[in-house]
């Protein structure tokens, strides 16, 4: 945050530049604690494979999390509830197009991206043309995307091409390929937000849309780009997830609605917008996976696991919140 332009736009500059004053550090601390908690049970066995699995699953959450973060940064009331159905629709259509043929991978990816583009454009046209509040607009469109997905695949489970399955489950130097994709996306978002003019615009809109508009920010163009990016990121995550799990399922995105919001907030971004935090997304995604695996390794049932997860989310948010911060 030593960039001379930041004081104008971000509130974090109240804090001195110190690692432990960064809002995102706590997500990593918590993730590390959950990792050690799991290792304490196994006596250090399987640390490598736990790390590998955590990186894999965290990358799906991180990719949708980055998209949700961009949307939430736009300010109060901006949330994309259509992420799960965009994921499902993109994955379903992409796998259908690829039809398990190895030569069709790029065309499959292109299909997924196009679906994401379409979903994003549809979402934003509801918001801008019909002036429907984003929560309800993305909720309604998610119903439509879900129906499209049901209609297009009729419960058939098409296997991904062999080469693609190998890519998504494989890794380089102990880091899963999907995690490399997730990290690259997070880096790109981070650079765009912290260094690019587009990032300044997004933050400015989130802090005060009217003020941003008066100061010449192309408000609607930026909002459009953000909603489309979010849907495209969801489609990428859906594409990777379906290839990873051996096919698209209609409920494959379900857990990512709450997950995408949770990683944004645990990662230290302000839910009120105007203040985003890319590194925290990855920390929170790792944390969300590791907490479940920790509770699993203690042999707790699904019920207790859910209760603990909930209590931990509330506790993290209560501790991380700064009283008096605008919502």
């Amino acid at each position, binding site marked *: 945050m030593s960039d001379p332009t930041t004081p104008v736009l971000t509130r974090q500059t109240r804090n001195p530049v110190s690692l432990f004053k960064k809002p995102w550090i706590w997500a990593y601390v918590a993730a590390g604690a959950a990792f050690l908690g799991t290792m304490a049970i196994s006596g250090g066995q399987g640390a490598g494979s736990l790390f590998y699995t955590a990186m894999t699953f965290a990358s799906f959450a991180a990719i949708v999390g980055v998209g949700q973060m961009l949307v939430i940064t736009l300010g109060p*009331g901006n949330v994309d509830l259509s992420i799960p159905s965009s994921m499902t629709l993109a994955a379903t259509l992409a796998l259908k197009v690829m039809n398990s043929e190895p030569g069709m991978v790029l065309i499959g990816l292109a299909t997924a991206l196009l679906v994401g583009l379409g979903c994003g454009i549809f979402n934003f046209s509801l918001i801008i043309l*019909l002036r429907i509040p984003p929560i309800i607009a993305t909720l309604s469109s998610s*119903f439509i995307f879900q129906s499209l997905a049901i209609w297009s695949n009729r419960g058939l489970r098409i296997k991904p091409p062999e080469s693609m399955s190998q890519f998504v489950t494989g890794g380089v130097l102990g880091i899963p390929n999907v995690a490399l994709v997730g990290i690259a996306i997070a880096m790109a978002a981070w650079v765009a937000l912290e260094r690019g003019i587009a990032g300044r615009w997004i933050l400015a809109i989130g802090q005060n849309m009217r003020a941003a508009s008066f100061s010449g920010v192309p408000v609607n163009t930026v909002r459009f780009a953000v909603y489309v990016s979010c849907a495209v990121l969801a489609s990428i995550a859906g594409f990777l997830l379906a290839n990873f799990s051996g096919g698209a399922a209609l409920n494959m995105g379900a857990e990512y609605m*709450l997950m995408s919001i949770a990683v944004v907030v645990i990662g230290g971004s302000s839910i009120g917008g105007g203040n985003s935090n890319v590194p925290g997304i990855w920390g929170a995604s790792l944390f969300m996976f590791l907490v479940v695996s920790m509770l699993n390794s203690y042999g707790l049932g699904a*019920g207790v696991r859910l209760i603990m*997860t909930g209590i*931990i989310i509330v506790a993290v948010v209560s501790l991380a*919140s700064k009283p008096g911060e605008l*919502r």
Partner: protein
Amino acid sequence: MNMSRDHFRILLPVLSLVVLLAGVFYLQPRAMSYFGLNLLFNLAVPVALATIAQMMIIMVNDIDLSIGTFVSFCACVTATFVQETPLLGYLILLMSIGAYAGIGALIHYRNLPAIVVTLGTSFVWGGLAILILPSPGGSSPEWLHAIMKSKPPLVPMAIIASVIIGVLTHLLIKRSSFGVLLRGVGGNDRTLSRAGWSVLKLKASAYGLAGLFGVLSGMALIGLTTSADANIALRYTLLSIAGVILGGGEFTGGRVSPIGAVIGALTLTLAASFLSFLKLSPDWQIGSQGAILILVLAARLAFAKREAQQ
């Protein structure tokens, strides 16, 4: 036209309900009977109660992502503890209302984002529900089943219940001084606190009321279905938000309408029946519900423009 803003606000939900009802009657004339209406609106009662609960939260500028799992939890408690050991069962339900009020107080006290806190508590309620009923089961208390399935003369139970819910909450929220204060929290909480009111207590009350209506929703649901499972009402989270907005409510400013919310819930329930009467392929059922939602909200835009011109 000589109408207040509130009347205008309620006109569109009423119109959309009437249009849908006309559509249903046109497609299936046999629905135009005591029995038919009962069937159409039967499941609307728990949805309406959950929508009122969500409205209490939206009224104070927050949003509740946990209402679906909370109603599921209450349904599980009703089908097990209330049925077997009533005293303990009611105590649990009472405590869960207290917990809701506590969550409201915590959100205000620490200035937390409600959307995230309720996200967290939704995991907690879901976990508790699974602990109570790991597999579907339980049964409805006799009296509850008797009330929900009763057949009063002339007008079906579901409609009587909806009217009672709408009128009572209208009196509480729109006509009482307590209701004015509650809506004031959504309108301008700083002014309220400068005038000497405790926003903390008011916010806790709003959440407590939401808890109360969530409990009622779970009980009503069990009275209808007679058995529970831990995921029985998960859809209610999104349905209730949609119901409040369909009913003319807004996300900010404490501008909500209890009668509108009930009508919004009825409209959403009816939309599902309407689509099944259309003999639409089941693939498109969810999608057309989304489309109906979009249509009504688009109509609202046209209304709002006229309202602005007057």
